[in-house]
């Protein structure tokens, strides 16, 4: 009888994120090239499965049946799986969950999970107008809920009112993440650094958010390789990084279904995290480094609370204490996060997971010394769904 195999993340790569002079297949090719540079032994014929994660490809790039088109462009001829997956901002971390299941069940051995978006169109209005199609169109979007800042601004106002969170505390998130990103040439805003003064005096986007509280939309692509541990050892000499546990929780589609007492409570994230911690057999205190979905500065504050890194309501004080900085108790968004990278929806998850792979292999630029456990998180939609993936240097017993 074959012994159970464990799924590992072997390596990955990202394209330059930003306002790119490129079409979507250029971005998928750039991501795959970066991935092959990271895993020199990897050949196109090694990849038996392909999961293509994108939201905009149907609307913005007229590429509805995307997966076979990407396979062709990358020279892949998948034999186990070749699918497109769309969970908006959580796309490629959702893809990693699927890939883990396929590898551990024996259906696939080496799966590329890749995500890309071409967000910016020849005329700027089209990008914001398309946001009406990524929310619950007939209900929330018809109310004018398009681009995310207004919704997250309401979350911030409510968190400030209920828990005393301040603009200064939110600025600590922006400063930390921009400064991490200033070391990462792939980030949209590389090599920009940020000071508290600059963060707090930035132009207003939506009260209480200034420019640096909000991540930018970006064009970009990312790719990672998820493989069985046996195949991973053929492909790379680096330490194995195991996908220990995952959780994904969807509670609603439109605002009427919001599960929290107010917008400042995200019980659906708490639940997704509980599932992932249980599967991974770890607790919040075990997590050495995390990539949480910092679409807005306030998001990271709510996330450290609901992920259990601090008590509910103390996220503002937690981030301001320096806990998220490189010398802090739990560095977060060490590659710059969404705030510095920008956010090509389907590409962000694999970008986060690739950074955590490097952290647990001891080769990150902003390396957390001796990191053993790492956590990636995405929220998606109008904060309607949460996705958590936990990595470790050892498999679950």
């Amino acid at each position, binding site marked *: 009888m074959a012994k159970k195999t464990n799924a590992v993340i072997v390596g990955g790569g990202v394209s330059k994120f930003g306002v790119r002079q490129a079409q979507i297949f250029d971005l998928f090719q750039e991501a795959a090239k970066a991935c092959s540079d990271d895993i020199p032994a990897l050949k196109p014929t090694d990849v038996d499965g392909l999961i293509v994660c994108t939201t905009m490809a149907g609307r913005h790039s007229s590429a509805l049946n995307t997966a076979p088109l990407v396979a062709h462009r990358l020279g892949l001829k998948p034999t186990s799986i070749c699918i497109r997956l769309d969970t908006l901002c959580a796309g490629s971390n959702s893809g990693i969950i699927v890939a883990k299941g396929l590898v551990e069940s024996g259906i696939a051995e080496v799966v590329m999970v890749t995500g890309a978006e071409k967000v910016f169109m020849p005329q700027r209005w089209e990008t914001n107008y398309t946001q009406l199609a990524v929310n619950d169109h007939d209900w929330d979007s018809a109310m004018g809920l398009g681009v995310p800042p207004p919704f997250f601004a309401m979350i911030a106002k409510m968190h400030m009112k209920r828990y005393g969170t301040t603009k200064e505390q939110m600025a600590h998130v922006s400063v930390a993440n921009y400064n991490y990103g200033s070391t990462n040439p792939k980030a949209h805003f590389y090599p920009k650094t940020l000071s508290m003064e600059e963060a707090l005096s930035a132009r207003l986007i939506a009260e209480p958010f200034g420019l640096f509280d909000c991540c930018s939309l970006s064009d970009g692509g990312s790719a990672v390789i998820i493989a069985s541990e046996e195949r991973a050892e053929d492909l790379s000499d680096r330490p194995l990084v195991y996908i220990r546990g995952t959780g994904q929780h969807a509670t609603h589609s439109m605002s009427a279904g919001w599960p929290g007492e107010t*917008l400042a409570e995200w019980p659906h994230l708490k639940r997704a995290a509980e599932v992932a911690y249980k599967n991974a057999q770890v607790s919040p205190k075990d997590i050495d480094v995390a990539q949480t979905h910092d679409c807005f500065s306030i998001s990271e504050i709510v996330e450290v609370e609901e992920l259990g890194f601090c008590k509910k309501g103390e996220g503002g004080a937690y981030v301001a204490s320096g806990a998220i900085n490189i010398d802090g108790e739990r560095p977060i968004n060490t590659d710059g996060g969404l705030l510095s990278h920008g956010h090509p929806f389907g590409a962000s998850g694999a970008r986060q997971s690739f950074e955590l792979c490097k952290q647990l292999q001891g080769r990150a630029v902003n390396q957390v010394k001796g990191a053993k456990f790492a956590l990636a998180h995405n929220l998606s939609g109008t904060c309607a769904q949460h996705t958590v993936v936990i990595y470790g240097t050892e498999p679950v017993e």
Partner: protein
Amino acid sequence: MADLQEAKIVGTPALDGRYISEMDMWPLECQEFNRLYQFYDNLREGRFTTTKCKKCGHIAFPPGVICPRCWSEELEWVDLTQRAKVVTFTETQAGAPLGFPPPLILAWLNFGKDSPIKHLLVRIINCAEGELKEGDEVKLVVFEVPAHPIEVKRETKVCNRVYYAFEPVKSASM
């Protein structure tokens, strides 16, 4: 790069100005395309409604053709409260999608503990920027939105449409 001034053909002339439902900001509301057309017909009569399950009593929002709690198809239309209180709100400074001219005011409403819908995110209209406050009472307002064509056999029929938002109660007498 070609000079737009000198280009002979620009855009997508093949579409010849046709309506594109894929780019429509409003729902397809008519009976031919939507089993929830009653919701919009009720709006036209000033009613804010949704579907209630006759089997388990669950009131869902948005309405549907099955009950999301017990999957029964035996549903009836019931009226919802048309007044709510503003919990929090934002006035969008920039970046609102086309079709939502400034000030685009979005509010998180509380419908009270007796309402089957606790909260809803809505657009506030008939309200100047800076006028709305937390705790203000708002009420339903229904308005016409652009119609769209549909092909019925060889004919082109026009589907009229309405949508809803909320407005401050104090401006109700205007």
